[in-house]
């Protein structure tokens, strides 16, 4: 033991040289408060004994126990003790740091003490709840309190700094979530940059024909928002654009955006003469196989910005469009553009993608008469090839039997999507009903596993669909196969309620494909350093308490990128994201706890170990100088501390001296208690 003591002393003498070590503070006067937490702690730990033990520890001026320290009375008890005994540090032995450190820190900061002078010792989760033996638990609690007191005695005040931030937001994704968020932010007077990778804004909502539960026209619903965003003076809309790089931290992100050339200038009047003369006709991606477009096109008539786009992949360079354009808007010489934006916060609203059912080979998606719900929406749209009529895509005939199949790519472990999309029941019922409305003589079957219609007017909507005579079959089809001897599609399914397997000879099958994370989101999330759930969606900060915050400070999530949502939920979620993203910007500054890394330049030998170690790149070094810590970027992880061979870099309140004091106290008390027993 003597050897180790000596070592400790050596270290202490050397550590004392650290200039940044908090200057001589007034003598520590520690108060220890042991909480019963009802029976949670006191049922196992002898709290009176612990409080008594604590009163003999070095620097402890006052020690007591109480039934519920976090209660109003408990806090008053602490505040009274601080005042009466002139305490300058508090130790509460109760529950976890996460649960009640903020409570007690606020209690002492209300009295003018620095909140960081409070130390939380967790004798509930880490002691009373995991130990059976009452004696052992009490001993363990004593050791923990001793360690906590040692740590508290060494603690230093930490300032909270106000950091000015860039008052501008970037919204990535121009679907209904992005539009809502952009609008809400702009209305608060915050300039917004809206980045959309497609040629026009509006996203999936503009592809839909009707929305549940009112069967409203989504284009009519969303167009005020579309127009509002386009004309808002505080919103800059960048279409055909993608985020290519993100630097910086909350309050000051530097985002690089690359815009692909449109080959048509903004002075385009959308007269459409170019498309009239364009000789190239290809499938319109927007219509999912139910419409055509030219090589120079607008995906749909109401598309915004109301500017045509030239698709160079299919263009044959005939130049007809250049000739006919009355305003000389077509310009083959346009090139891609890179721009950099400084923004304070970022809202990610990249939406979802419809699941591609090709993977479920038993369903034979790819046959023209087996389509997805999104394709059904386009088929029902008046602007596509079918002009809104319901037909069999293979031959243009009116279908006599239609089968709607639920849970395609959702609730399916085989394809890796265990989750329920939650929206398909409603849109499935909606389209089944619309088919029945259009074609009353057509049999419409609806194959489902469970109908999930929670919420106001949703079950009612289901009931209306039942009234229309749709045949609801509780069963998931095993196979959907084109009949080799005819032109029907055979759907084999068990009606589990009558226990009868049945084979439906269908003319048209509509698959309710689930919602999945958009392809390519991996790249964006890597640039934004976002955590993703295993399903591919962006992971929220907390599923209950932080659904619009992402895993990264300053980046917020809006809409279906956080998980499947219907339009109502998406809009509400996006509004939440907007207000969260606006909050620091409206305030005008960030509050940052300065328990960050500090470098003692005298001790530093410029080995740059800390610079290479820092996982967030917060330490930089200029030629001929000592390394510097960027206080705003530093996330206080402390990975740099062990990297320093001389102990020159430290984290405030997690300094070597502070951590070592805690460990030393713990182990020496342990030896003492053990010795006392013998």
């Amino acid at each position: 033991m003597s050897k180790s003591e000596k070592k400790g002393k050596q270290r202490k003498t050397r550590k004392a040289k650290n200039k940044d070590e908090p200057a001589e503070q007034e003598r520590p006067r520690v108060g220890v408060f042991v909480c019963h937490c009802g029976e949670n702690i006191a049922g196992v730990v002898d709290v009176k004994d612990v409080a008594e033990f604590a009163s003999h520890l070095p620097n402890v001026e006052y020690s007591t126990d109480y039934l519920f320290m976090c209660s109003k009375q408990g806090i008053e008890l602490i505040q009274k003790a601080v005042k009466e005994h002139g305490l300058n540090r508090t130790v509460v032995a109760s529950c976890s740091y996460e649960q009640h450190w903020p409570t007690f820190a606020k209690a002492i900061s209300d009295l003018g003490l620095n909140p960081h002078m409070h130390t939380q010792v967790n004798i509930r989760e880490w002691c009373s709840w995991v130990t059976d033996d009452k004696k052992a638990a009490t001993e363990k609690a004593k050791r923990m309190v001793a360690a906590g007191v040692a740590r508290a005695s060494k603690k230093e005040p930490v300032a909270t700094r106000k950091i000015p931030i860039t008052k501008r937001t970037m919204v990535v994704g121009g679907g209904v979530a992005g539009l809502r968020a952009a609008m809400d932010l702009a209305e608060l007077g915050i300039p917004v940059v809206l980045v959309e990778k497609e040629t026009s804004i509006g996203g999936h909502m503009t592809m839909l024909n009707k929305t549940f539960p009112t069967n409203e026209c989504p284009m009519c619903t969303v167009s005020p928002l579309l127009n509002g965003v386009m004309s808002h003076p505080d919103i800059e809309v960048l279409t055909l654009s993608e985020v290519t790089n993100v630097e910086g931290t909350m309050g000051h992100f530097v985002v690089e955006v690359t815009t692909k050339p449109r080959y048509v200038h903004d002075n385009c009047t959308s007269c459409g003469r170019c498309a009239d003369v364009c000789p190239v006709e290809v499938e319109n991606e927007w219509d999912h196989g139910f419409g055509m477009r030219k090589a120079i096109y607008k995906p749909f008539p109401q598309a915004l910005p109301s500017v045509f786009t030239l698709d160079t992949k299919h263009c044959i360079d005939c130049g007809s469009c250049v000739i006919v354009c009355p305003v000389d808007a077509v310009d083959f010489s346009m090139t891609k553009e890179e721009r950099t934006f400084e923004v304070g916060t970022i809202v990610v609203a990249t939406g979802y993608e419809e699941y591609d059912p090709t993977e479920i080979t038993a369903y034979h998606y790819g046959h023209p008469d087996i389509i997805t719900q999104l394709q059904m929406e386009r088929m029902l749209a008046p602007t596509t090839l079918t002009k809104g009529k319901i037909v069999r895509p293979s031959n243009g005939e009116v279908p006599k039997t239609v089968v709607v199949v639920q849970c395609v790519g959702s609730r399916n472990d085989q394809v890796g999507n265990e989750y329920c999309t939650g929206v398909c029941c409603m849109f499935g019922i909606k389209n089944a009903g619309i088919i029945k409305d259009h074609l009353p003589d057509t049999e419409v079957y609806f194959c489902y596993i469970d109908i999930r219609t929670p919420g106001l007017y949703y079950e009612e909507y289901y009931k209306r669909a039942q009234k229309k005579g749709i045949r609801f079959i509780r069963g998931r089809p095993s196979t959907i196969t084109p009949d080799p001897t005819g032109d029907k599609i055979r759907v084999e399914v068990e009606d589990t309620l009558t226990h009868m397997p049945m084979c439906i000879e269908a003319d048209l099958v509509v698959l309710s494909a689930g919602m999945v994370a958009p392809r390519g989101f991996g790249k964006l999330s890597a640039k934004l350093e976002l955590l993703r759930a295993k399903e591919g969606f962006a992971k929220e900060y907390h599923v209950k308490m932080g659904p619009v915050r992402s895993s990264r400070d300053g980046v917020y999530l809006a809409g279906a990128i956080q998980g499947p949502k219907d339009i109502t939920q998406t809009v509400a979620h996006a509004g939440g994201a907007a207000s969260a993203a606006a909050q620091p910007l409206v305030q005008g500054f960030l509050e940052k706890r300065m328990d960050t890394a500090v470098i003692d330049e005298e001790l530093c030998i410029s080995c740059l170990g800390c610079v290479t170690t820092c996982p967030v790149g917060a330490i930089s070094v200029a030629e001929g100088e000592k390394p510097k810590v960027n206080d705003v970027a530093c996330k206080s992880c402390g990975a740099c501390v062990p990297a320093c061979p001389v102990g020159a870099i430290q984290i405030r309140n997690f300094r070597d001296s502070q951590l070592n004091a805690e460990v030393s106290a713990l182990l020496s008390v342990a030896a003492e208690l053990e010795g006392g027993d013998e």
Partner: protein
Amino acid sequence: MSVFKNPPCVLDSGKRDPTIEETLKAAGFDPNLCIQCGTCTASCPSGRWTAMRTREVMRKAAFSIEVVLSDPDIWLCTTCYQCYDRCPRDLQVTDAIIALRNLASARGFISDKHRKTVDLLHKTGHAVPINDRIRKIRKELGLPELPPTVYCYPEELEKLGKTLFQLPPRPEDHDEEEER
């Protein structure tokens, strides 16, 4: 009075045999995970001709209802694995049926026809043994009259018969008639 105490159509939750659920779990199939979607029944080639409903078998197994073992239903599966390959919960349905059959066999619920197959295996080493007509054809095709299988090694055959597939007797209260 007692006649009316326990209506036969009401499931007596006390009359369950937990070994059924345990056996399935040991075979890697948790019947409680089944969402009763019916994909298995719709896939089943047998269920199109019989009263066998794979989904129901799984449900009964999850509830550990003993009748699932004595029912001939589990013996109507052709082990075609369509239900297994299509189950959206990725449950190993066919393996579960095999596990149920194993349990049924251990309790003696094996039909006489299947017992005959086992007898053939014990006697000849084959489920389908050779006969005189085939011996002749084999010769005509230029093949050896008897394939060099275990049939030609009676001692080993006897040893195998003693080691493998010793079936328990049929329970006395359960006769063949009841089965079908």
